[in-house]
């Protein structure tokens, strides 16, 4: 898709912007720093009387901005760049203390109150999905518009192995808050998060296999097709040849509560909760759990990016033919991208399913379109 240069008689905003930016860059370094600092201070001071919570947040981020780019701590093993470590740590700390301060702080300017805790839990879940999507779309360049299907697969995996859905079986393993006589499969959530990841990675490979020969927008449309088929299967899944797999539009409910069980609860002196649902502030517990999972996902994603496989993905994204001729196994690399990209989605959904205690393919037509916003996050995140 190429257009010749020049776009009619409209004012060339880009040229004006470029001009002004060049004027700014010609100013001496010290002047620029002072102007920036003054503007930032003015913003913080302007927000302070009405929205001190927001102003504090801004002040922290501006403070981070002033850490020089090349400042680093030298240890005998490696240099630790301060800005790259301090920023995520501060963000993580702010997130961890958020449940404590939420009720104390005032509204967000132009938005309204700060998010409720249950919204914050959903935020962590979506953030995990965005990270997973970023692996498939961002690293490997495979535009997967059916990512929502993985989310559903993860949710149903969690639901199958931790509810009364399969009432003929009676399997209990590490479950919390479920009576011994309750039928169905009940497995600990911590195992399930891994299990859902494995199941979805498998589904990711299954979906990925036929699409390996396709590129670009053909791939996008096939994955979009899968993203439409799987929800319909879930919706009609209460009678697959007489077998109730998904309980149809009602969804599977209730799902067992997550928790660490009595032993770990006692061993950590009550730090790790026995049963999340029994907690008074259970949303906080879900939120922190989500944060931990998110941190693991982000860490794994970054380490993966820098690994041999991650570099292969990026090479594949830049030029598939060149990458293949440099000896990168296309099929394996692409499938691994699908599999790893798919893995965080169900983990997040598994925890989400536990929180809302129900797994259902929403009958609202809007829900099928969520992928687009995730795609948006992943692209805006780079």
């Amino acid at each position, binding site marked *: *898709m*190429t*257009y*010749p240069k020049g*776009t009619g008689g409209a004012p060339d905003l880009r040229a004006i912007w470029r001009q002004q930016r060049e004027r700014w860059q010609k100013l001496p370094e010290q002047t620029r720093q002072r102007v920036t600092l003054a503007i930032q201070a003015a913003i913080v001071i302007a927000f302070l009387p009405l929205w001190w919570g927001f102003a504090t947040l801004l002040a922290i981020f501006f403070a981070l901005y002033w850490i020089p780019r090349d400042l680093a701590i030298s240890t005998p093993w490696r240099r630790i760049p301060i800005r790259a470590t301090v920023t995520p740590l501060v963000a993580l700390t702010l997130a961890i203390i958020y449940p404590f301060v939420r009720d104390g702080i005032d509204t967000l300017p132009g938005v309204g109150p700060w998010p409720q805790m249950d919204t914050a839990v959903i935020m962590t879940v979506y953030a995990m999905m965005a990270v997973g999507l970023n692996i498939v779309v961002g690293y490997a*360049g495979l*535009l997967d*518009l059916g990512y929502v299907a993985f989310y559903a697969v993860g949710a149903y995996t969690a639901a199958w192995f931790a509810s009364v859905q399969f009432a003929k079986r009676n399997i209990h393993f590490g479950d919390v808050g479920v009576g011994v006589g309750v039928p169905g499969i009940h497995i600990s959530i911590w195992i399930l998060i891994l299990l859902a990841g494995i199941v979805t990675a498998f589904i990711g490979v299954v979906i990925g296999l*036929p*699409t390996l*020969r*396709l*590129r*670009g*927008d*053909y791939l*996008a*449309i*096939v994955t*979009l*097709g*899968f993203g*439409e*088929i799987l929800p*319909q*299967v879930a*919706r*009609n899944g209460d009678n697959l040849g007489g077998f109730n797999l998904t309980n149809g539009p009602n969804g599977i409910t209730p799902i067992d509560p997550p928790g660490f069980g009595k032993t770990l609860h006692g061993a950590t002196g009550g730090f790790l909760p026995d049963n999340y649902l029994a907690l008074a502030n259970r949303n906080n517990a879900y939120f922190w759990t989500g944060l931990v999972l998110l941190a693991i996902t982000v860490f794994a994603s970054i380490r993966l990016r820098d690994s041999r496989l991650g570099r292969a993905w990026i090479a594949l994204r830049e030029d598939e033919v060149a990458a293949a001729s440099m000896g990168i196994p296309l099929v394996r690399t692409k499938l691994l991208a699908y599999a790893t990209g798919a893995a965080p989605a169900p983990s997040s959904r598994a925890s989400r399913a536990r929180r809302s205690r129900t797994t259902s393919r929403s009958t609202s*037509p*809007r829900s*099928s*379109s969520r992928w*687009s916003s995730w*795609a*948006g996050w992943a*692209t805006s995140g780079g």
Partner: protein
Amino acid sequence: MTASATTETLPAKGLPRIGVMSAIGLLLVALVLVWLGVNLAKEPAAFASVFLDGLTLGLVYGLIALGYSLVYGILELINFAHGDIFMLGSWISFTIMARRFHLGDTNSVGKLIPALLVTMLAAMLFCALLNTATERVAYRPLSGAPRLAPLITAIGMSFIFQNVGLNRLGPAPVSVPNVLSHNAVFTIGGHEYRWYQLIVGLTTLPVLAGLMYLVQRTRQGKAMRATAQDQDAAAMMGINVNRTISFTFFIAGSLAGAAGLLYALYTTNIQYDQGFTLGLIAFTAAVLGGIGNLPGAVLGAVLIGMIQQFNEGLSWHSPGSDWTQSIVFSILILILVFRPEGLLGERTPEGA
């Protein structure tokens, strides 16, 4: 052409089991044919009636599919917003028909025909301008960007239009009055083929013929074909590429507008999210026929319309309307896997 011929004669080293794949594809086609044959033998009358329903629906799909195919042919961009422009076409037709001309369930012919013509022209113009504006705002600035960038803005535009539709139409389906007569034209073994179906089906034909004439015979059509083939070369031959692209979007949008009106008349029910699903179905049709190929798009749309009606209307072992979407998208996937160039298309590096 030569490239594809040579790749087929070479031992396909990177893609093994291509013979197995085509065998599976043929087997699937054979199964579908057997299913259709048994249904035909069991209830010929029902089969014929469902066939006609499918043909009518397919022609309406064809109008939308052509919009996808035109734009894809020229820009290699899946215009995701197209389905939602079609939905807005339904909305504006409904508004003009019901609110402006006060067409109800029974109308005098003298009022009906001019009112419908004005509605159709207005809807076509509205959608055409909207589509052109979308191209100008959302796709042209990304001309130098990677190919996925305009695709993502297209998805964004799709959601903007969907929300406009949600704002205007509300979340519930809006029922359109039965403007066209629902009396039977003729009856096949107890199954009625009604006037509104006939009129909707027949209206699509002159639109399709006009489009074919435009693309194949006129100067502007020649410019479009040249731009689709090679933009740089077309520009060097003195074709205003940007204007040709705008014109293509204009034509595609007007088709969406016409489809919007006809769909509203056909289903007598419009909803803010009809564009997403129908857009995907129409895109499937365009891919089935060979994307970028205009007769292929209509052929694919008619096939998809028939498959949908066969699935919902036949009685012997048909999955039923619960599975329609799954079937349509499975066809999409199967086509892209087994024959990415579609029924009438040529091989492209994208799909092969």
